[in-house]
């Protein structure tokens, strides 16, 4: 076992402790290669953090913009309309950019009666946690900010911090509808953490690791098609666990039919009712970032990560191979994001008690059964293979 390296340097806002063993990652090593020797390790770490933050932030912005555009197009076509068609020419591709600019230059209104520190901090916290989860995503061989050994654990842990931001936003807004949204979010996310975590256990048992990188590498067989969900020997648990994970994911990312924290027709806009301009866009970006991260986790654990049929043939050309892998990974993730959108524009919304009943009475027991089945299956596979 490698030592547990949740690498502090890769986390944008985490302090670097001097006492910690000075252990860098690829990014710091790369920087060390470029910079003179005199640059101290903490300098390298800071620079690496800044670089990682910049890259992720840019990536998240692009993902969020593309997702908003995609969401509007998907919604449009599902609803027999076209969606944005004008800005930028081809199918309104620049609509998201225009929206982004609009949100940036809009007046940032803070209610006189709002709890200002909470109100201001909430969007930053929400977006910050969403960005942090990108740290562990293995986009392609070598394209990964940190190979955290407990990657899956890390994602679940960090992504649920979002809830605190949402509660801060709801409470800080000094609006009863917002408080309702925040409380719903708290109740919902706290309940769905359990099925979410449990439904991740079958792949973890299969790979024998919490690392997302190892999970991806484990699926590289069969010319790149040895995906967990396609492995016939475990299909009995891989498919149900994915379905359970997907449902829990919808709840975790506040997507319909679980979009109760911001349910438009009941709570106006829920916890972000009082937000405008850039602060609102932070919540918006968080939603799409969270969708992407969750889809990416599903891609890594069930759909082979960057692996795809025949992709290994390109291994000789590193640049092309890395690009192709990244493309495969992002396309797979976006496909899952698309399914989430599809669900949103098809289904009505559940009521809070029904959400709770679904979570506690159906998903959690089912997850336990699947985890048990996965353990049993793994044991059988172990026995049979020896």
């Amino acid at each position: 076992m490698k030592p547990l390296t949740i690498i502090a340097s890769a986390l944008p806002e985490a302090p670097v402790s001097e006492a910690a063993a000075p252990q860098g990652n690829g990014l710091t090593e790369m920087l060390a290669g470029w910079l003179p020797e005199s640059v101290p390790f903490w300098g390298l770490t800071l620079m690496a953090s800044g670089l990682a933050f910049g890259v992720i932030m840019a990536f998240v912005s692009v993902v969020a913009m593309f997702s908003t555009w995609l969401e509007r197009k998907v919604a449009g076509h599902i609803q027999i309309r076209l969606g944005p068609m004008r800005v930028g020419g081809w199918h309104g591709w620049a609509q998201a950019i225009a929206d982004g600019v609009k949100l940036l230059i809009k007046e940032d209104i803070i209610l006189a009666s709002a709890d200002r520190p909470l109100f201001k901090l909430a969007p930053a916290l929400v977006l910050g946690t969403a960005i942090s989860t990108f740290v562990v995503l293995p986009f392609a061989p070598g394209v990964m900010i940190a190979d955290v050994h407990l990657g899956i654990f890390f994602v679940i842990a960090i992504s649920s911090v979002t809830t605190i931001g949402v509660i801060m936003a709801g409470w800080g807004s000094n609006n009863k509808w917002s408080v309702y949204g925040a409380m719903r979010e708290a109740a919902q996310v706290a309940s769905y953490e359990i099925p979410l975590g449990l439904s991740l256990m079958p792949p973890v048992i299969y790979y024998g690791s919490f690392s997302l990188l190892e999970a991806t590498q484990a699926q590289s067989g069969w010319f790149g098609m040895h995906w967990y969900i396609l492995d016939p020997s475990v299909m009995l648990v891989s498919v149900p666990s994915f379905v359970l994970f997907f449902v829990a994911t919808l709840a975790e990312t506040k997507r319909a039919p679980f979009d109760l924290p911001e349910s438009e027709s009941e709570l106006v806009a829920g916890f972000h009712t009082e937000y405008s301009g850039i602060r609102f866009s932070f919540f918006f970006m968080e939603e799409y970032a969270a969708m992407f991260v969750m889809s990416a986790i599903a891609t890594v654990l069930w759909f082979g990560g960057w692996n795809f049929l025949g992709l290994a043939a390109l291994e000789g050309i590193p640049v092309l191979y890395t690009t192709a892998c990244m493309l495969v990974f992002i396309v797979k993730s976006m496909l899952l994001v698309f399914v989430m959108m599809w669900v949103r524009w098809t289904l009505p919304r559940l009521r809070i008690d029904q959400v709770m009943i679904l979570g506690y009475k159906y998903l959690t027991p089912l997850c336990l059964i699947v985890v048990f089945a996965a353990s049993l299956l793994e044991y059988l596979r172990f026995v049979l293979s020896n």
Partner: protein
Amino acid sequence: MEEPPQTTPPDQHRLREIELDVRTQDVEINMGPQHPATHGVLRVLLRADGEILVGAESHLGYLHRCAEKIGENVDYIQYMPYTDRYDYLSSMNNNLSYSLAVEKLLGVEVPKRGQYLRTILAELNRIASHLVAVGTYGIDIGAFTPFFYALREREFLLDLFEKICGARLTYSYIRPGGVMNDAPAGWLNKVAEFCDIFDQKWPEYWNLLVQNKIFIERTANVGVMPAQTAIDWGCTGPMLRGSGVDWDLRRDQPYLVYDQLDFKVIVGEGYRGTLGDCFDRNFVRMYEMLESIKMVRQCLAAIEEGEVSHPDVSLTIRPAPGEAYVGIENPRGELGHYVVSDGTKIAKRMRCRAPSFVNLSVVEHTLPGCMLADAAAIIGATDIVIGETDR
């Protein structure tokens, strides 16, 4: 928060308080006047214990436009456009109710073709109105897509209305003495075409929205109103029929040519839950659309050439003295006009008995005990149009 803390009334919640040994506070929260689920500027003051409502109180009047006072100050034809604006989703029916009341005082009957045209338009308008009702109900529940599907068919209907009277929302087409003009050439064929299209499209709404498991979960057993309550509170239309009361003015007080049409009065059956719940009201609306199509088809088969308006009714109407009440089956219930005339060209009283107004009055008694999300479901199932409740 900003309001002073409200202690729970001891008589209502004593048991719960003893059980929890905690003195809880109810949240008083304003739903509206600007709220997506109130379909306009209705304000419902909700009192909630967490997610569960313990009280509700409606506040109306944000859209009060003094229609009745205007009716006492303008002459009969001038009042026509104001009727369009009560329930702007079913203007044809509003026109019809008003026209019939005035004709009752005038003592003139519209020629047969006019009556058939009126019936066709009233039924088409009912479909258009129910499409919005069912579609927006989807939005209240959280399903956005069916609304656009509903608007697709409504668009066809509005085009038909536009062809016949030039307006898409406020028609003023049916007027005292007849209708504005005869249907343009080929218009009736277009209507027949619509009937065929609608028959094909109807299952889409049924499968996409009404048969959706989540939709059923959200509406069945929610906002149950027993038949006796519905009758006592004066509910009419789908609210009354959804509670299982077999009452439809088109059959029970036949006006126009409804006595010659063969149609079924759709009554809620508790198909997915308790009789009289929100699901049943939508069930009634869904099937009423099909019945309307049936009626339109029969009218198309029976309509003959001829005059559409009574020749004696001019622009200045001086009805005989007297008073007349005519209630007709609007998409939302019984829309009645109570007109008092003294023989001059201006009415002495122009009372509009609005179905939404009455149907809404029972909602605040249905809400306590439901969840906050059910408030949207119940108000949506009541299908109110604020233009009509406030007039």
